[in-house]
């Protein structure tokens, strides 16, 4: 029991650190693409600490200050539902409590809370961003869920452990090779999930500065950013488990998540934003069709 609690606590702390570090690295990488030096890799820690220690902040109502809690809770839950390292049972955390369906749905918890907080702020930009975000989310979740269903049905298990376990027979058994189309669909859906351009229509600073968190400040923003970092890591681990054979050791976990994290960063550096409807249509047609190919293959 104690070991479990320790593992959970360490997972959260570790994921937060890793998430913030990845954020810092991503800022550096983006800067290099711009031709700049970029900030220190620890910049996100400094920002977070500064925000946390700001002496004043404002709120617009109950939902407004509960939203960061929603966000952080949703992120932690997703994180704990995914086993970290295969073979080390202590790192499975809470993954026994549910399967991929639970994961797909619990991912909405933080988003919904965030959206409600944005709604309570009363700022039209925040609400427009939520309306965009939800519209887009409903589109990318389509291809993502098709891909997940195709993989899960193809492997005859909904449990993430099971999915990971089925990929342990060498690199060719990874789902990205066994289900190339579904993986492509899921990876395209990964971009909007990470709010990477060209799908970054929610936080679009030149259009609706800056979307849902526009009224957030100080400590609430720091909560929100840590939630985002955690959520990012959770999604990375999920995708690594789903498509890239999971992690058989700590090293491979870090390497795989790091490499996967670089993918949206690089893509978003060279694309402008879609408009909302363009993004939705793209997501409806290309990734969904790709994922459907594998679904049909699984059904036949």
């Amino acid at each position, binding site marked *: 029991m104690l070991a479990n609690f320790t593992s959970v606590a360490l997972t959260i702390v570790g994921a937060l650190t890793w998430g913030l570090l990845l954020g810092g690295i991503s*800022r550096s990488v983006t*800067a290099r693409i*711009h*031709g*700049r*030096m*970029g*900030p*220190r890799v620890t*910049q996100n820690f*400094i*920002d977070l*600490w*500064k*925000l946390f*220690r*700001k*002496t*004043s*902040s*404002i709120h617009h109502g109950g939902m407004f200050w509960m939203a960061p809690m929603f966000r952080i809770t949703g992120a932690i839950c997703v994180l704990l539902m995914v086993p970290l390292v295969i073979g080390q049972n202590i790192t499975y955390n809470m993954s026994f409590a549910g399967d991929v369906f639970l994961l797909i749905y619990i991912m909405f918890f933080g988003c919904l809370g965030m959206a409600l907080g944005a709604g309570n702020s009363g700022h039209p930009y925040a609400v427009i961003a939520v309306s965009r975000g939800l519209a887009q989310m409903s589109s990318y979740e389509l291809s993502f869920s098709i891909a997940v269903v195709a993989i899960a049905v193809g492997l005859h298990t909904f449990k993430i452990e099971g999915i990971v376990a089925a990929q342990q027979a060498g690199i060719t058994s990874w789902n990205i090779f066994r289900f190339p189309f579904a993986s492509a669909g899921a990876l395209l859906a990964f971009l909007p999930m990470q709010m990477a351009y060209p799908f970054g229509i929610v936080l679009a*600073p030149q259009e609706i*500065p*800056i979307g849902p*968190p*526009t*009224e*957030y*400040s*100080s400590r609430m*923003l720091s909560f929100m950013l840590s939630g985002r970092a955690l959520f990012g890591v959770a999604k990375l681990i999920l995708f690594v488990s789903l498509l890239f054979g999971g992690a058989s050791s700590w090293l491979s976990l870090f390497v795989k998540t790091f490499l996967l994290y670089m993918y949206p960063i690089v893509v978003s550096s060279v694309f402008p934003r879609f408009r909302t409807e363009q993004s939705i249509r793209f997501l409806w047609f290309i990734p969904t069709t790709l994922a459907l190919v594998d679904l049909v293959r699984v059904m036949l």
Partner: protein
Amino acid sequence: MYCNQPPEKPGNKKELLEKITNMARANSLWVTAYGTGCGAIELRPLHTSRFDMERFGIAMRPTPRQADVLIISGYLATKTLKRVIRVYEQMQDPKYIVALGSCTINGGMYFDSYNTLNVLDKYLPVDVYVMGCMPRPEAIIDGFSLLMQKIKDGRAQGWKHYKENLDYYRENQKKIITDWDLPDYNW
């Protein structure tokens, strides 16, 4: 009046925390994206590879709620002053103002203009002035490093000063903003 108490010794836990926090504050300055005047043209090169102010943790934030620094990039027309006050009051403590250009110091070449104010300090608490017309990016970076030093030393207290002398500032502001309709200051 002189302060009789000896300076508090470092080592106090709270003090240490504050010191760390000040370091963080100095190294993470988020700037409100508001080009109030022509100095904004030199803020763009600051972003880019030549000067790259993100090295120092300085980043632009689109909304004042999340920003720490307000750059007054030059002369202020009275119409802009109203918006600047609004933006400044929506920023969260601690917050700092960096004023660029000679025109914020004493009106510069617009000293006799009917629409630009001469001395910004009467209306908003400026922490750092950067002179020049317009200041070069290097000068702005220098101004920022000055601000960082002040923050680290805990001397960038313009926002506190503004709170304490709100009446003074308000009086000056209302003198030149004839159609005053801003709400009272809220923190």
